[in-house]
């Protein structure tokens, strides 16, 4: 480097003002950490792309369903050789498929929460990175020198992570709102935003964004190894969706024959999440939605609390 070297500072010492609100200084610092690297916009673009894809899929599907529901020429024709009960069931299904109001509400619920699957994974990973980055890039030293009260650092990050989850939710929802309103307007249908099931889906979509960000953050606090925490997060998220209920079905069928086994599948974070966002029961034995909220919060708190205790004692070297 060929920069000219300046003389040592003059003996008049600078007066350095105290700025910022004490409680919020750390939050502000954490937000600056997030916004001064590439991660946030890379994740943001990924979230937008996945939201766009999901919107496309959800809207094509909804268009078909709504088309079918509006088809007034369709007539219920039961297949031959069916029992009375089967005919009744088929009739009920036919009625549902051709219930325009029901189909509109379902379509609205899907479209207005588009991109949830990957959106949740992304905010979870961001939550993990917010804390593991400190150890990955050895910035923990500077951070803890500036604020030796490590628990306060963790809470500053916590607030920043929840803010991040909220912003991701807000942007994804803004995009899906715009797309959804155009979609329903084009079809000449109501957007169903006044319906409680749709409102509920949007509200719990926000709750899910916040809770998954929190869970990722809790895991990051617990496991300071970045690669370890990221891999664990992905296994918990994706593995839970793919294999979660299957494992509990196997236990129910071969080990413990009780419906409570299936109900208890809610302890898996991804099943808890689905239980929470589903307007109706996912499966007959599913736990109520609020159990899902408690389970997700509980895991985050347990991981975060153990992580805080470890961090307080940890040697930063």
């Amino acid at each position, binding site marked *: *480097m060929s920069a000219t070297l300046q003389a040592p500072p003059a003996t008049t010492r600078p007066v350095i003002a105290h*700025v910022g609100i004490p409680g919020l200084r750390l939050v502000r610092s954490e937000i600056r950490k997030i916004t*001064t690297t590439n991660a946030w916009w890379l994740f943001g673009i990924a979230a937008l792309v996945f939201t766009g894809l999901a919107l496309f899929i959800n809207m094509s599907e909804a268009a078909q369903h709504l088309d079918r529901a509006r088809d007034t020429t369709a007539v219920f024709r039961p297949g031959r050789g069916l029992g009375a009960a089967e005919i009744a069931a088929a009739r009920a299904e036919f009625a549902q498929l051709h219930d325009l109001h029901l189909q509109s509400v379902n379509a609205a619920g899907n479209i207005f929460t588009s991109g949830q699957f990957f959106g949740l994974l992304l905010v979870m990973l961001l939550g993990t990175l917010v804390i593991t980055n400190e150890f990955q890039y050895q910035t923990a030293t500077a951070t803890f020198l500036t604020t030796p009260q490590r628990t306060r650092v963790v809470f500053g990050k916590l607030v920043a992570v929840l803010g991040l989850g909220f912003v991701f939710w807000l942007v994804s929802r803004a995009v899906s709102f715009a797309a959804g309103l155009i979609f329903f307007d084009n079809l000449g249908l109501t957007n169903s935003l006044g319906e409680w099931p749709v409102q509920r889906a949007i509200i719990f979509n926000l709750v899910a964004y916040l809770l998954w960000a929190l869970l990722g953050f809790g895991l990051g606090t617990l496991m300071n190894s970045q690669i370890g925490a990221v891999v664990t997060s992905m296994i918990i998220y994706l593995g839970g969706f793919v294999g979660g209920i299957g494992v509990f079905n196997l236990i129910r069928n071969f080990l413990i024959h009780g419906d409570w086994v299936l109900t208890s599948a809610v302890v898996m974070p991804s099943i808890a999440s689905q239980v929470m966002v589903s307007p109706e029961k996912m499966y007959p034995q599913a736990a109520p939605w609020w159990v899902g909220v408690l389970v997700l919060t509980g895991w985050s708190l347990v991981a975060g609390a153990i992580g805080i205790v470890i961090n307080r004692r940890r040697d930063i070297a």
Partner: protein
Amino acid sequence: MADDGIAVSGLTKLYKNVRAVDDLSFTVSPGRVTGFLGPNGAGKTTTLRMVLNLVRPTAGTTTIGGRRYADLTDPIRKVGALLEASGAHRGRTGRNHLRVLCDAAGIPVSRADDVLATVGLTPAADRKFKGYSLGMRQRLGIAAALLGDPDVLILDEPANGLDPEGIRWMRDLLKSLADEGRTVLVSSHLLSEMELLADDVVIIAAGKLVQQGTVAEVIDSAGGAQMLVRTPRPEALVAELGAGITATPVEGGALRIVGADGPTIGAAALRVGAEIHELTVERRDLENVFLQLTAGKADIR
């Protein structure tokens, strides 16, 4: 202690079965540059990290101006530190790295530009950390240490990666900071550099204190001055000086004498009638003394 000195008392750190730091006590005075010396693995970095509340001591206490680091309000306004194994996010610019710290400490972000100018990094302020050379990273670390205009500076191997010009700049900077009445504690194994820079030294080896004092005191403590004598009759001179000295021949026919000063040797030579062709005080340097004091204690543990 009401001033800004550093006091380390009975400090011990046990890692599994290694005593990285072993009942270490020393003090560092304000207004002076104190060199913290020791062979690799002596426990220097561990000690500094314990002073800064980054590593938990197994036993003992450390205070800065009479208070533990963790009890300081806005510690970076009181203590500036540069440590090894501390960095910045690869993808963050130097300026933003400093601004993040400003936010957390309640310091106006404009201060980041001030310290960047002080360390000569202004041209690279908006470059990402991954593009910084070792010397630039070191300067950024020093900039971070200066952010809060602290009364106490604790620097671990600050000369690492600096070019000769940078080392000289660092020396001038630290000296001027000490002249302003600040406490400056610098660890290093560049002994010749330390001899130029430090007023006091603390030498540790194998986690234990070996010697503490001013540079001159420490050098003297390792035995008196050495005299170099050139004479055509060395045997007669040595015999006259008696048993209290050690004399070793050096290249060129001279003698190195330890245990007698110039006047004593001159008088002895006069008594036996030996000509003196040369009589010089050979000042021992810090490196010499350091190696003698830490001999056999620098093994890998």
